[in-house]
């Protein structure tokens, strides 16, 4: 094997941007203007805060458009954005802009929500901390996965790829560097956005077990 794999975890401190939207037109304008970390926060918050739910609820934009504005079709379009397909936050941002722009261009209504139910843009500071776990072999890797907190799992699968701009998740990258190409490919193909974090953990265990 190559270098050992050091497991990290992450914690978030949520920042309020003081920016709000009360209808789809404002949502579009604000999505264009907020920092990338805010787009990241609103497309990934649900995963962590509601990781026990199955199926996973959508991103914050879709949730607000559906449940607050009552625009089911637009909400569905926003919810079905295939986040795993996008390699960067800016590409993801462009997809939300495209959907909202198309909706507004068709002359659909831009009615305001009730006062007090505005969409509030947020952002987060991510603090990355070490864990006591280190894997030197695939066997050790497999033994550690069940012990990890979901935040550690989240960090190596989601944060690494989307926010830290790595080409693939940390597990696949380490396995590839270690010569485990087929296993790395298999883990890379998982769509973590369509399962709970516990479901993802089980899937990883199942895939890796077949190689040990």
């Amino acid at each position: 094997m190559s270098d050992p794999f050091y497991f990290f975890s992450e914690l978030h401190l949520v920042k309020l941007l003081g920016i709000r939207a009360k209808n789809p037109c404002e949502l579009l304008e604000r999505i264009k203007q907020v920092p990338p970390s805010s787009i990241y926060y609103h497309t990934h918050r649900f995963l962590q805060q509601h990781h026990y739910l199955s199926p996973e609820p959508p991103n914050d934009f879709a949730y607000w458009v559906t449940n607050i504005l009552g625009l089911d079709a637009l909400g569905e379009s926003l919810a079905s954005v295939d986040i795993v397909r996008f390699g960067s936050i800016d590409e993801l941002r462009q997809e939300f802009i495209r959907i909202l722009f198309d909706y507004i261009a068709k002359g659909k209504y831009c009615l305001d929500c009730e006062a007090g139910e505005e969409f509030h843009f947020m952002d987060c500071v991510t603090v990355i901390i070490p864990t006591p776990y280190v894997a030197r072999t695939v066997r050790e890797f497999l033994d550690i996965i069940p012990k990890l907190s979901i935040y550690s799992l989240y960090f190596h699968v989601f944060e690494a790829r989307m926010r830290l701009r790595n080409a693939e998740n940390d597990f696949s990258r380490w396995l590839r560097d270690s010569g485990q190409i087929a296993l790395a490919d298999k883990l890379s193909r998982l769509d973590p956005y369509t399962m709970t974090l516990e479901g993802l953990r089980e899937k990883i265990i199942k895939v890796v077990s077949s190689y040990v």
Partner: protein
Amino acid sequence: MFNIHDYAAIVGQATIDELYFLASRLQGKVIQHINSTAVGGGVAEILIRMVPLLKQLGVDARWDVIKGNEKFFAITKNMHNALHGAAVEITDDDLQFFLEVNQENAAEMALTSDIVFVHDPQPIALVDKKTAGKPWIWRCHIDFTEPDMRIYNFLKQFIERYDCAVFSAPAFSRVLSIPQILISPSIDPLSDKNKDLPESVIAEVLKRFTIDPERPLVTQISRFDYLKDPVGVIEVYRQVKKHIDCQLVLAGGGATDDPEGLRVLEDVRTAAGDDPDIHIIFLPPSSDIEINALQRASAVVLQKSLKEGFGLTVAEALWKGRPVIASAVGGIPLQIAHKYSGILTRSIEGTVFYLKQLLNEPEYARKLGLNGREHIKNNFLITRHLRDYLLLFISLYHQENIIYL
């Protein structure tokens, strides 16, 4: 007072280890909390728990209280009401007196700690004594949604001299020149109000209040206040009662010398009439076990507030695995994702519809309750609150959005 390790059984040892790790990064730093009262009120209640727990984690946390006379606190009470949007008169002389009291306190207090953490408006002007290189935080515990703009602007000149401001809900954030942080309040799972209770205690409380344990119970716990819409809750119950044989509990406290509270209680009693299945329970302070038992015995818990600060009674009920139907106001939408971890409503009709649904579909209601409990466990327990504070303190020493420790 609980030991930090007592929480490991609930949140897991890994969470406690994380807190110790974060605290270790604050070695040598003195963190000074400042508020306006040592006992009574929400802020003191939080600090009474928080400061000892921070100390147990190895953080040098201290707590100071400003001094003020009756006139000062009458002015700050008026300011508090004005920030909630109430029309109250605060003169320029009042504001001048407010500043003088702050200056007197600033002259007497040592304000040279590494981090100064000021809670609420009362001590806000202490920031005059801020020294370069030592971060100051202003923590706003109140609803800032529709503040009286004159008072808000008066305070804003001080707020923007802090290094950051902390709010409890997104709706309370304003356009400010300093970073704003969201830190929600929390519940303590080991407190009398939230700890597990033996079935016998729950049964005894139901018996004491002559509640039938065999029929579904719908409960709203809140002080008797028009903003909690207790009469609306009775209307909801009456419409549901036509189809489902349920009982209603409206339980809460309130100051006995508060004329409005007594008026609300009277209105509620009138609305309830002689229905034996409506239980109006005026609870004295320190009725935490009773509140705990009533929440645990409920088939559905309501929080039909018209306006709400954060609405921690929702977190309390969800922590007990109870399905909750609550108004989408204040901090409640943070606690409930509609149809995932509870139900959010905006009207009597909507509340009636969902209450019937949850009483008729106990399996669905059970699932909402389980999801709600998990959500509270991950996001609204005191351990998360401690973690957020530690992260906040650490973040003051970093400019970047991704911090490697």
